[in-house]
């Protein structure tokens, strides 16, 4: 009796320990959200969201940063989503499960997912700017410097590489939920493999591709390290109009305002406001991705 009681106490303590770890994580998340919402909520106004920074960035809004972030993720998605989707199609539809090629590709995708984001920044600088950009300048512009310097195109492409594995993994998961019977039926009716993929498999996994895109956009909107030296700017007076322009981004704006600003205390509301905007943006994107994915998984179990 006493023994079992002791055992129970131990059990309760240990279960309590694991529970409190889980609660600690949730508490950290809640505290972070609450602090940022309380700090930033008074700053959010229509004017803050739609006007340019003023008086040496101590006043005014963050419109160029929002615009730059939107542009960045759009160019990035245009590059990353098709390539990611096609890679996922290859892995699920064409490659045999145990083929060496498929294994190597999967390993490469996972490697891409764990490479630190700052390395992508270095790669963007070394490859896109110093190699591709400089070559383009030399061949098309006779050495005049246009592409061989940081700009929004190179930053977006760098970000596309970073988000490629996100897209691949989501789309692959979605493709796997399309039942084998559907493929077999399509093939039995005389459709070719490509027709089956294009007309049957892909339409059945649109939500998965959307999840991948949303997750990639959320990741791309929040990352700063890859674009630090591939195109982001401290301040630009005009919105980026062409691929060769530099641009502002929400995440970098936060970093600059907190560490490089002349008067940190004075700009504190702007910092909190910008952080709130970025957090809300990634939050909405992530929640919609989670809901979409939940639906896909439900479909799979049915």
């Amino acid at each position, binding site marked *: 009796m006493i023994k079992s009681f002791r055992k129970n106490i131990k*059990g309760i303590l*240990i*279960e309590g320990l*694991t529970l409190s*770890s*889980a609660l*600690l*994580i*949730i508490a*950290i998340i809640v505290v*972070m959200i609450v*602090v*940022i919402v309380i*700090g930033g909520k008074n700053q959010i106004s229509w004017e803050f969201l739609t006007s340019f920074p003023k008086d040496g960035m101590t006043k005014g809004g963050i419109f160029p940063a929002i615009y730059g972030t939107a542009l960045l993720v759009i160019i990035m998605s245009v590059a990353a989503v098709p390539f990611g989707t*096609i*890679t996922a199609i*290859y*892995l699920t539809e*064409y490659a045999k499960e145990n083929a060496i090629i498929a294994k190597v*590709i999967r*390993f*490469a*995708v*996972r490697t*891409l997912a*764990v*490479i*630190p984001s*700052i*390395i*992508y*920044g*270095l*790669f963007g*600088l*070394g*490859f896109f700017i*110093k*190699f591709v950009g400089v070559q383009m300048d030399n061949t098309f512009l006779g050495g005049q410097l246009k592409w061989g310097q940081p700009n929004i195109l190179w930053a977006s492409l760098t970000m596309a590489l970073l988000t490629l*594995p996100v897209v691949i993994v989501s789309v692959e998961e979605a493709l796997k939920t399309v039942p084998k019977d559907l493929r077999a039926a399509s093939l039995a009716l005389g459709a*070719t493999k*490509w027709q089956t*993929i294009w007309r049957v498999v892909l339409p059945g996994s649109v939500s998965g591709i959307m999840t991948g895109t949303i997750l990639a956009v959320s990741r791309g909107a*929040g*990352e*700063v*390290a890859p674009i*630090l*030296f591939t195109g982001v700017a401290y301040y630009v007076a005009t919105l980026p109009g062409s691929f060769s322009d530099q641009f502002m981004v929400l*995440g970098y704006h*936060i970093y600059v305002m*907190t*560490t490089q600003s002349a008067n*940190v205390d004075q700009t504190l509301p702007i*910092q909190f406001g910008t*952080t709130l905007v*970025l*957090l809300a943006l990634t939050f909405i994107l*992530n929640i919609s991705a*989670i809901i979409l994915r939940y639906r896909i998984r439900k479909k799979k179990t049915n």
Partner: protein
Amino acid sequence: MTKETKRKKKSESGLIDITQKKFRLSDYLAEKVIKGVAFLSITIVVLIFIFVFRESLPIFSNAKAPEKTELASRTVETQETYGEVTDKTATAEVQETYGEVTDKPAAGDVQETYGEVTDTTAQTNPAEKSYTVSAGSGNDDNRGALKSLLTKDWVPVSEKPRYGILALIIGTFKITIISILFAAPVAILAALYTASFASRRMKEIIKPTIELLAGFPSVVIGFFALMVLATFLQNVFQYDTRLNSFVGGIAMGIAAIPIIFTITEDALTAVPKTFNEASLALGASKWQTAFFVILPAATPGIFAAVLLGIGRVFGETMIALMATGNAAQMGLNPFESVRTLAATIGAEMAEVVFGDTHYNVLFLIGSLLFIFTFILNAIAEFYVKGKLMKRIQGK
């Protein structure tokens, strides 16, 4: 053309018409294109390695020049003495300045102070002459850089720049250890709770919430650490420097928790139900089963989770830039400011002259980071996975 002829040949043989599918150009092309695109990920990994490493090559190539090797070696000695002197005289100053680092763009300033102090001590040093001689020609800059790589002075902006990455490496490892000591137990226990104890309802709250944390931009976590966490921890632990490796480590731990949690949870739920049932049938209680049966069965997976968590922390840039104080110091005290490898790249690459030694050294640091995370991932992938499968399938 060749495809056409192939097709003709096939139809000529007659037999295959029914059993083999008709050749279609669109299908053939689609397959080739898809295959080609799929190879892109491999190409990117290779390209990243080549281009990051390529930009760091000049350090090695110029260092091979045979002339003046003797002088160079003497330079190293003198540099070491410089290092000690610098440490004694300069650390105090640097630490003081470092309280405010985040308030202004001080990284450069502090480095300069470092440099100046070193220079004044150097003038009193009799070995100065040989140093100046060896620093005469252009190549010597690179050679000096290579020789000084394993010293502890990181003084890239000064008249005689030195690129000792030892302090940066120690700083990085210090932060990694702190954050993993914080993140790994919390994440693993939470995963154990979700996998073994939690009701379905609880699971549906915990898992999406932690997934949400995975989506937090690191700059937001860095901002939170800088504004709130740093002050809070300073009030609790009463240390002097507000931004230090402890604050940075905890903040990076927050970033690493979702990774460790998700992979651990996957590994725990992958343990077959039969393990659970057998243990319960033998009379073990729920917590005994969780701790002594399920947890050990999933160890390789948990190991992989921790490795990937380490990889995440190791390369984290924005949190390191914002919350660690950014002073390259050797000490093992967790409440001192540190500078990590990734943060050094992030902070200095934008101001560097393209193609000079400093630029090359930063790329060399990048190559180190790349190789380290690549190896971590490879271990997690091959070694751990093989072991996990073996254990679960009972072979």
